[in-house]
């Protein structure tokens, strides 16, 4: 049953024009960010290496594909979830709007299976989009700017060799996928609650903005800083400390998985209780 619903929902999602518009927009934004990052990258390198210039000569170019992918990573964690949330929540709000949901519910389909199928499609689609973004950023960056050492400032100035940088960037995309899935799932749960597209988008965008703001807020409470879902969404950055704190990353991603499951359970529970009309 779930597989049949999953396949149908995936087909419906891919048949919608807005899905392809969203993917096109994401690729366009990535291209713009890439070239903006190229010009920003030169400035950043100058600032980072300013103190070292008096002691050293430099051989090699740090404005390369790896730096640009890192800068893309820094900028994409707002617009990517925003577009994902619009597309994913639209999977349900359009059904409410077009009243197709009532038609589906007249069939021998359980509400739980139906909405679970939508959550599964949301997860698979999100993973696909992150992989697409990762591949396109690697292909574009390496094609135009080549590979090379990566320089990152996180408390200390960290240099990574090209091979090491590639591994860390891939791992960062993998960790970022958890955050994207979290936002996608949250947007579908919000759609279950609000039903109407505009309200859903506004609340989803508000949720995303609050989460982004809270990432930077340090209240000094360990429980808030270590366990609150908003604080877990920059786990990908931990791969750019010189010594990777694997236990912290494992803990954060495990917690995000728990939050994803909780949001799905909440969505399924509310959808079952809600009136369809």
């Amino acid at each position, binding site marked *: 049953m779930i597989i049949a619903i999953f396949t149908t929902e995936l087909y419906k999602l891919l048949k919608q024009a807005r899905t392809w518009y969203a993917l096109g927009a994401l690729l366009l934004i990535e291209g713009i960010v890439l070239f903006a990052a190229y010009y920003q990258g030169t400035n*950043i390198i100058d*600032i*980072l290496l*300013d*103190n*070292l210039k*008096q*002691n*050293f*000569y*430099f*051989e*090699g*170019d*740090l404005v390369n594909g790896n730096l640009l992918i890192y800068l893309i990573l820094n900028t994409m964690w707002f617009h990517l979830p925003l577009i994902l949330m619009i597309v994913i929540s639209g999977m349900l709000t359009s059904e409410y709007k077009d009243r197709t949901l009532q038609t589906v519910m007249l069939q021998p389909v359980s509400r739980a299976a139906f909405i679970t199928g939508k959550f599964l499609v949301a997860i698979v689609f999100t993973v696909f989009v992150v992989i697409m973004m990762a591949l396109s950023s690697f292909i574009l960056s390496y094609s135009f700017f080549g590979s*090379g*050492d990566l*320089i*990152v*400032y*996180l*408390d*200390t*100035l*960290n*240099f*990574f*060799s*090209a091979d*090491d940088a590639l591994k860390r960037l891939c791992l960062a995309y993998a960790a970022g996928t958890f955050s994207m899935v979290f936002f996608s799932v949250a947007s579908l749960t919000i759609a279950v609650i609000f039903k109407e597209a505009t309200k859903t988008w506004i609340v989803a965008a508000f949720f995303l903005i609050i989460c982004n703001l809270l990432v930077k807020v340090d209240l000094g409470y360990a429980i808030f800083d270590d366990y609150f879902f908003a604080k877990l969404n*920059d786990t990908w*950055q*931990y791969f*750019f400390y*010189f010594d990777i704190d694997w236990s912290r990353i494992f803990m954060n991603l495990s917690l995000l998985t728990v939050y994803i499951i909780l949001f799905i359970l909440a969505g399924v529970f509310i959808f079952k209780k809600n009136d369809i009309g």
Partner: protein
Amino acid sequence: MRKMLCAFLYLAVNMVSAQVVDPDLLLVKARMDSIIGFEANLELKLDVEFINMPAKYAVMKYEKGKMIDFDSEDFVMIPRKGLDFTLGELLKYPVITVDRGMEVVNGVSCKMINVIPDDRRADFSIAALLIDTARNRVMQSEITTRKHGTYLMEFKYRSNKDPLPEQIIVNFEIEKIRIPLSYMGKEADVDKERMKAEGPKTGSIILNMSDYQIDYLQ
């Protein structure tokens, strides 16, 4: 009589100026001048508190009269001082030297010489060299530059007869990086008071040379 006096003064000045450069330093310089070129593999290890960098590798090529050339697939940071093997930069302009007696460095008795530039174009204000006079090579040098602080360099050689070092440790002063907030990453901590109190830091870079191919003057 006046011509004789002038000739005497000219000779006296020339003799004095000829004696201002320590002969042991000139011997080291002459030994280094016999090298017209070399090539070596280079490993660089940076040791600065606030910089994390893996060991870097490069091929170093030197031809007499030219700057040392580095070839690497990595991004490498080459210290501004410490690679003047031939003393070409130190003695580029006229200098005077002062004998400071003997000192022991790593169990080797060395002659300490202060080198003071006699030309404003020189980029250092004073240098202290510890020279192994038995083997005609520099064991340690401390160069105080006009713009870039003080560099302390230690030279280690593989064997007694090697003219070029297999390891150089360059110690230098470096100011902690000040980054605008917009470029900072996660949890980057800025403690302005602490940064001010700490002042400049010291760092070092260790250069390990191997597989020397040296061309000597015939």
